[in-house]
């Protein structure tokens, strides 16, 4: 098809060339092209990548050259030159293939190295995150321990609170009991120093005396019942008070004697002596004015103070003694319980 197409225009020229080329030494266009192509290949890096192919190309060119020398412009020369030109191009192509193959191998090698790197990197990350999980677990364990400790503390303080509550409840019940049982015979008040039970002097003692009236004994029995309900750690202070009639000294004596009478009666009803202290206050602490008979009657009295022990500071038992000692210098008139 190509030959036919070209045949129309070129054949006469080719014919002329063929006829006139017999004596000429000029190389055919094919040989020129073959030389040029081979030179290009020879000076390229093809010999480095495909030396055998370059040699083949050289030999092909040599054959064409021989044919040219033999018969310049011959069909053989042209055909062999044509082949030689292809051989040169083939050498270039083979060299190109080899170069690409080496590039590919290098790339493949780095690819595998990179993959290995990536694998190691991923492994390291996995180990790191495993480590993180481990330390987080430790942290959690530590926090768990802390929580358990706090829980224990909380439990402890809750227990203490329960105890405290129970104690308060007991005190409340004692007060209720005191208020109920002693309503007719005494006044019951809650003061800062403790629960205060005030008994009228008139119902306890004959005038100017410190021996208890029979009715007084019954009343004090009821007081003793109440006191037994009270926390056994609490000290009960028994204060005797008089009105302002008579000498101060005498009144002091009388008040102390009366307090001691009450104390002793309470002991006889089963109260522990160490819990009871008796003091005489004489006429020093009147409730109201001594100007009227009614006022003086109110000032004559025996007061029982169920003393609040300082719970937070010391253990039970200890405060009562401590308090006793502290109080002693303030009330020098106090007589030691007999």
């Amino acid at each position, binding site marked *: *098809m*190509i*030959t036919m*197409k*070209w*045949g129309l225009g*070129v*054949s006469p*020229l*080719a*014919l002329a*060339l*063929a*006829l006139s080329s017999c004596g000429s030494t000029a190389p*055919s*266009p*094919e040989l020129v*092209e073959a030389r040029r192509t081979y030179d290009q290949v020879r000076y390229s890096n093809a010999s480095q990548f495909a030396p055998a192919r370059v040699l083949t190309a050289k030999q092909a060119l040599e054959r064409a050259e021989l044919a040219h020398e033999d018969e310049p412009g011959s*069909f*053989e020369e*042209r*055909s*062999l030159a*044509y*082949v030689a030109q*292809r*051989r040169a*191009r*083939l050498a270039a*192509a*083979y060299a*190109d*293939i080899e170069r*690409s*193959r080496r*590039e*590919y191998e290098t*790339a*493949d090698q*780095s*690819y595998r190295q*990179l*993959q290995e*790197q*990536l694998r190691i*990197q991923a492994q390291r990350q996995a180990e790191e995150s495993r480590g993180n999980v481990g330390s987080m677990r430790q942290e959690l364990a530590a926090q768990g321990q802390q929580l358990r400790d706090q829980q224990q503390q909380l439990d402890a303080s809750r227990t203490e609170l329960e105890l405290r509550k129970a104690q308060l409840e007991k005190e409340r019940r004692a007060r209720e009991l005191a208020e109920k049982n002693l309503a007719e015979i005494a006044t019951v008040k809650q003061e800062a120093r403790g629960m205060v039970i005030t008994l009228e002097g008139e119902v306890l003692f004959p005038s100017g005396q410190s021996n208890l009236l029979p009715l007084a004994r019954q009343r004090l029995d009821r007081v003793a019942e109440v006191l037994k309900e009270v926390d056994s750690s609490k000290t009960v202070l028994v204060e005797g008070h008089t009105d302002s009639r008579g000498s101060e000294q005498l009144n002091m004596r009388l008040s102390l004697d009366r307090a001691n009478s009450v104390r002793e009666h309470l002991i006889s009803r089963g109260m522990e002596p160490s819990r009871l202290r008796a003091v005489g206050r004489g006429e020093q602490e009147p409730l109201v004015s001594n100007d009227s008979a009614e006022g003086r009657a109110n000032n004559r009295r025996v007061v029982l103070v169920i003393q609040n022990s300082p719970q937070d500071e010391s253990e039970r038992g200890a405060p009562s003694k401590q308090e006793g000692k502290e109080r002693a210098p303030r009330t020098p008139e106090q007589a030691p319980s007999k």
Partner: protein
Amino acid sequence: MKLVNLSPAICALLSSAAIAGCGSSTPPPNAVEARSAISAAEATGAQSDPVAALHLQMAKDQVRAADELIREGDRDEARLVLDRAEVDAELAQVLTRKSEMRARAQQAQQEIQRLQQSVQP
């Protein structure tokens, strides 16, 4: 370019053969090697590569021309033409492989760049 170089050669061959009649008949040439080279080039996919496809076509044309020469009794010329056909077919095949190898190497290098980016951060 190649086509221009080739065609006058064929014309020259045909005309010189016709005029000089210098064909001496030794062993009869056959197109077996040329045809198998063409098959190999086609198997490689030479049709899809423009330059390779051109050489494949040249190879086929020359085999046809050689057949004609054989019919006319120009055995030596036919042998030379068949050599050209064979080398063109081989060139078609090798050029195709060259393109493939280049593409493969480039692809591998791109793959490496992609991997390197994922290694760096």
